[in-house]
């Protein structure tokens, strides 16, 4: 068994750099940002920020969600068709369940 899948050509390496988005170092940086956001989320639950509590937590959640989707899942660098398939499912889920929760007057109180 060898330690390489195949012998890479310089052309392949160039193609990889061009298509596969961030480098390993950039992935580590993105991870550190995500870890920092998680730390802020947890800190927010221990300090009183009044009416900002809910918007801040939801905002940070959305930022983390799309950072992973765009960079770790490569949607930002892949063909648009893949992203559209995912966003259709996500959008449908948000719409259907927001409508369902509204019928139970979840957002009223």
């Amino acid at each position, binding site marked *: 068994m060898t330690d390489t899948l195949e012998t890479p050509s310089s052309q392949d390496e160039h193609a990889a750099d061009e*298509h596969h988005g961030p*480098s390993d170092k950039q*992935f580590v940086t993105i*991870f550190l940002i995500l870890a920092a956001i998680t730390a802020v989320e947890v800190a927010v639950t221990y300090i009183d920020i009044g009416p900002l509590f809910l918007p801040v937590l939801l905002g940070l959640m959305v930022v983390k969600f799309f950072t992973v989707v765009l960079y770790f899942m490569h949607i930002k660098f892949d063909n648009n068709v893949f992203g559209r*398939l995912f966003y259709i499912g996500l959008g449908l889920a948000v719409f259907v*369940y927001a409508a369902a*929760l509204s019928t139970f007057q979840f957002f009223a109180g």
Partner: protein
Amino acid sequence: MSESLISDTVKDAVEIVKDHHHDVHDHDVHGGDDHSGDHGGHHTSLGLSNTKLAMWLFLGSECLLFGGLISTYMLYRNRHSENLGPDQLWDIPFTSATSFVLLTSSLTMVLAVSAAKRKDLRNTKIYLGVTALLGGLFLAGQIYEFTVFYREGLGFTTSLFSSSFFTLTGFHGVHVSIGIIMLVAMIGMLSKEKVSGDEAEAVEMVGLYWHFVDIVWIIIFTLVYLIPA
């Protein structure tokens, strides 16, 4: 006359298949869509990988599954007895630590995909192994948490809150378990050179599934644990 119609239709179909085969061959040889990032494997008429397309379609449908479970929890999160609700049970520092573990596993997964694309088999297997270990650690934390809750008196049928909570987090745990199985299987298949088609794409598919498990937990962690009922 009908025989002639059938014969013409068959001839047309054969031509279409030949043309499509020719297009796919051209795509594989000349690279096709520069933004697809696909290398080899089976392609759709769009020049995209069938496997990748199916995986994204699957993940899109999974959004609907978890959307339903999260909505049900949000609806029933206040339906519990006074002494067995989130305020009495949640251990935020512990859950934060397990969330951090899962987040770290996403990093090691993306590094595994990156190594696979560089055709670096050794590091691919190491990162996949570390990802599986971190996933196992997260799962162990979840089992410990469930055990603590059960000892406190929170069973699956104790209240609507407990049923919806255990169903949501349990489903997520099952997804993590399946992810770990996929990771271990991928390490074995890479070691034995049993991966058919593009190895990097196979690792990437496992990666997509694993990151999806992570983004679902990002939502659960905020909506279930951090935002009080």
